C-alpha cells in the first residue's frame, strides 16, 4: 500500500471537515473494499479518515415509523438484530447471502452501500477502464463479459453493482441519511442513491465528496410475511451474484396488493423491475402469474456477447424467489 496520512475522527463534523478539505481524502469504515482497492493500486487516497471511533453511528434502534440503522453497524450486527429479523427478514437474508463470516464482521452498512461497482478489468491496472481512468476505454465491452450487465449499461461501462444488502434496501424503500460538508443533513431515497454509468461511469452514486452516510432508515411495511432473497452464483457460498432477486409480496385475501422485484448482478445499480411488479399487482400468487412477471422483467434485457444466459437464469430466479416468498411464513 502507498503511504497516506491517517486521522481518527472523533466527531461526525470532524470527519466531514477532514475529507471535504482534501479532494483525495477518503473515509475508512470496515476497510474491506477500500483497503483491497488500495492494495491493487486502484484507489490512491492521500488521506484516510477512520470512522471506527464514531461508535454512536453503530446503533440500530426502533423509530416511530420503523427502524434506523447506523452507518457503522456491521453487516453481522444488522443481519442478526432481532428487529431486523422480525420486521425486515429480506434484509437479513440478503446480507447473509453476501461475502463471508469474517467480512460481515468487518463490513459496515455505509461501506457496503459505497462499495465500488466493478468488474475484473476495473481491478486490472494494466487494462483500460473508464471507471478507473475516465476516457481510457472499456476493455470489457469487447472482452470477456460473462459477469456483466444486461440492463442500463452504456458503451462506456458494463460493470455490475456487486452488493447484496442494497438490493433488499431498494425493495424495502430505504432512505439514506447523509451529513454534508456544511453540517446540514439531507436524505436520498435509495432508488436515487446509485447511478447508471452513462458518460460518467467513474461515479457509482450520488453522494458528493465529503458527504458522510450516517444512517439508513426503513419504514414499516407489509412485506415481512412474504419475502425472499435468492442469490445465484458460481459456487454455493462466498461469490458474487450472477443474478440475485430480492422479492417481496403483500397480499390482500388471495390477491397481490403490493409487489417488489429488485434484481442484483444485472446492472450498474440494483435494478428494480416495475414491469414485473405491475404484472403481479392485483393477481393471485400463482406460478403462471410469476412466470408472466419474470417474462415482463426480462423483456428489455440486452445481453452482451457472453452473458445471454442471464436472461433465462434471471427469469427462473424470479419465479423461484417469488415461490419461496410465498412458502416463507414468518
Amino acid at each position, binding site marked *: *500500500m*502507498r*503511504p*497516506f*496520512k*491517517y486521522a*481518527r475522527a472523533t466527531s461526525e463534523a470532524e470527519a466531514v471537515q477532514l475529507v471535504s478539505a482534501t479532494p483525495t481524502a477518503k473515509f*475508512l469504515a470496515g*476497510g*474491506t473494499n477500500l*483497503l*483491497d482497492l488500495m*492494495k*491493487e493500486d486502484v484507489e490512491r487516497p492521500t488521506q*484516510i479518515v*477512520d470512522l*471506527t471511533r464514531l461508535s454512536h453511528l453503530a446503533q440500530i434502534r426502533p423509530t416511530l415509523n420503523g427502524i434506523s440503522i447506523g452507518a457503522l453497524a456491521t453487516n*453481522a450486527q444488522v443481519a442478526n438484530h432481532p428487529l431486523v429479523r422480525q420486521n425486515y427478514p429480506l434484509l437479513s437474508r440478503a446480507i447473509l447471502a453476501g*461475502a*463471508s*463470516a*469474517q*467480512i460481515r*464482521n*468487518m463490513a459496515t452498512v455505509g461501506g457496503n452501500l459505497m462499495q465500488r461497482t466493478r468488474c475484473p478489468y476495473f481491478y486490472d491496472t494494466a487494462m483500460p477502464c473508464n471507471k478507473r481512468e475516465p476516457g481510457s476505454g472499456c476493455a470489457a465491452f469487447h472482452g470477456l463479459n460473462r459477469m456483466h450487465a444486461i440492463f442500463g449499461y452504456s458503451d462506456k461501462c458494463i460493470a455490475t453493482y456487486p452488493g447484496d444488502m442494497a438490493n433488499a434496501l431498494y425493495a424495502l424503500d430505504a432512505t439514506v441519511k447523509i451529513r454534508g460538508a456544511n453540517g446540514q443533513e439531507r436524505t436520498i431515497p435509495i432508488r436515487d442513491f446509485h447511478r447508471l454509468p452513462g458518460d460518467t461511469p467513474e461515479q457509482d452514486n450520488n453522494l458528493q465528496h465529503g458527504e458522510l452516510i450516517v444512517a439508513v432508515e426503513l419504514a414499516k411495511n407489509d412485506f415481512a410475511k412474504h419475502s425472499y432473497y435468492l442469490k445465484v452464483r458460481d459456487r454455493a*457460498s*462466498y461469490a458474487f451474484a450472477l443474478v440475485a432477486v430480492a422479492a417481496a409480496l403483500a397480499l390482500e385475501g388471495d390477491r397481490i396488493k403490493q409487489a417488489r422485484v429488485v434484481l442484483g448482478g444485472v446492472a450498474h445499480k440494483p435494478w428494480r423491475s416495475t414491469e414485473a411488479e405491475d404484472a403481479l399487482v392485483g393477481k393471485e400468487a400463482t406460478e403462471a402469474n410469476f412466470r408472466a412477471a419474470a417474462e415482463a422483467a426480462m423483456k428489455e434485457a440486452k445481453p452482451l456477447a457472453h452473458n445471454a444466459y442471464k436472461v433465462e437464469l434471471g427469469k427462473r430466479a424470479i419465479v423461484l424467489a417469488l415461490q419461496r416468498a410465498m412458502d416463507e411464513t414468518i
Partner: protein
Amino acid sequence: MRCELITIKVNGEERTLAVAPNRTLLNLLREDLNLTGTKQGCDDGDCGACTVLVDGRPVLACIKLAAQCDGCEVTTIEGLAREGRLDRVQEAFWHEGGMQCGFCTPGMIMSSYALLQRNPHPTEAEIRQAISNNLCRCTGYTKIVAAVKRAATFAEFTQR
C-alpha cells in the same frame, strides 16, 4: 508518514506499539510481534489464511489497518493453547488429521473456534458456512469438517 501509537491486547498481553498507517494488522502480528502462526496467503481478503479474532469475532487481518485496532483485543492461533495443552479445536484437528500442508490450518481453526463459541452444536451446513472464507488447497475439506464436529463433542477445557 507519521506513526500512530496504539495499545492492543494480543493473546491476553497488553502492548503499546508505534505503527505506520499503511501497515495491516497482519503485518503487525507477523513482522512486529513475530507471531507467524497467522499466515499471509492472498493478502487481499480472499483466502482466510490471516483469520484472527478481534474482540472475539473472526476477521481478516490482511484487510484491517493496524491503526484501526487501537483499544482492541486480538486472539491469534498462538493464543489458544493453555499451559501446554492444546485447545479442543486444535486437538480435534490433530485427531482427525484435518490438515496436510498446514498453511490454511491456523485460519481454519480460528474460524472454527469462533463458530463453536457462539454455536456449540453446529450442523454440517453451519460448519461449511463458517469456513467458507477459509480456502484449503490440500484436504478437500472432509477431514476439516469432521474435526470441527469432533471438537463440538469435546469438553470445553480451554474456555475463557
